[in-house]
């Protein structure tokens, strides 16, 4: 799965949570907080994205991330690892 596809999943969930946010406003070098989203919205967006991508990263590791790019990176890595691992 490409980085772009992962970003698209996150963007979709951001826009589902907030009707006010347009895709063009989403700047991956910034944080979701900068978009006016609150901490509960962010938890929901990340949870929904992980569910869709079928991966699970502890929230405690995600809470250190500072922008959307970093979130895409960690999800991208985790998805890639999962794709490489033999199905269990």
């Amino acid at each position: 799965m490409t980085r772009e596809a992962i970003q698209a999943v996150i963007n979709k969930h951001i826009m589902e949570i907030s009707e006010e946010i347009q895709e063009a406003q989403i700047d991956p070098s910034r944080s979701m907080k900068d978009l006016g989203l609150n901490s509960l919205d962010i938890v929901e967006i990340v949870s929904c994205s992980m569910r869709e991508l079928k991966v699970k990263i502890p929230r405690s590791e995600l809470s250190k991330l500072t922008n959307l790019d970093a979130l895409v990176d960690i999800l991208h890595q985790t998805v890639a690892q999962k794709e490489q691992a033999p199905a269990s």
Partner: protein
Amino acid sequence: MNSGSESDKFSLADFFLAETDDPLVPPPDFLKWRRDVAWAISLYEPSLGSAAEAICQLGSRPVINMASYGYLALMRHPKIIQAAKDALDQFGTGSCGSPILSGRTTLHDQLESGLRLLTGKQGVLTYNSGFAGALGTVAGLLRKGDCAILDERSHTSLVDGVRVSGARLAFFQHNDPQSLDSILTRESGKRRLVIVEGIYSMDGDMANLPALLEVAESHRVGMLVDEAHSILCCGPGGGGVVEHFGAGQRVGIQYGTFSKGFSSCGGFAAAAPEIVDYLRFYSNPYGFSCALPPATVAGLSAALEVMREEPWRRERLWENGDYFRQQLQRLGLDTGDSDSYVVPIVIGDDRAMLYELGHALRDRGLFVSPVDYPSVPLEKLRFRASVTAGHSRESLDQALGIIADVIVPAMRRRGLLKGVQV
């Protein structure tokens, strides 16, 4: 909790979205995690074999109780118990229906009068649960299209109230007037309500009410203050942080619970009579839920009376809080922002240590609760100690001795002790 295990990395924050097809099947990874951390979690929900007093019975032995919110130690006051017993005899066990359709008792009217006196507000509504009341008060006031602006450390009941209402939920940085100002500006044009607490439950610091009110007023936005941990305990007459700052006229709605200072159960909203009358019909946890039991209500009125007669309880509470906090600081421990009788002992980000120390403290006879992420930030895991008016100086010294034996060496080994100022 086994140090370094995979389960250590997960927390309750990770299992909200269930990956099962059937809501009646809990997530399998939650069940596995729950088994892995059973030892840690066994510290929660202990069964007490006595009243939740300063010394209580836990399992088969007495412990020093610093986990009770009964700040004024009213839970076994003879006058309150007698009033509740008399009401039980006269009015029976329950209120038997929603207040609007099935009525309440004259005892409820008396309690509301007492709460009017306490808060100086002319409208009062009582709820059978502190949580449901906070949720219902917020949800009764706000609508979709509105915006609630909460201190980021606000209790879940307030957050859930906003979510139920469908209003937009925004947080400002804890106790920071500038942050409040910028959020109020960002959300201008909407109907807005600022929501803060009197004393914050996990940090024990008081709302910076004068500065926050000034900002809210400059935007012409009203404020709700949840005094769950401060009502009856704070202010010269027990009227809470609002009374402490002399801000009664400036705070639109005051909310309080009966579970803490009152050592009972339930909650109330106090505001102008017109708002309260509106809430009567639009705050569902009031109108669609049974009124408080008469015995509870009689006990609450008696508690108000007791606190008029025994103001020393409030003084003792603050003295005890100051003593305990200062002694912890002398031990080099981090009590965060606390300036009250709610005293966190912040230990950092080591979860395994949190639970190991939690068990060691419990084994030594100190009942104090660990507070884990996501209730508090990851790097600020803590024990939350509540001091009450019922703690003797000896019991506080004993508790401090246990903490000095258990927490201090562990923190020192990890280089986490602050400069000791003996």
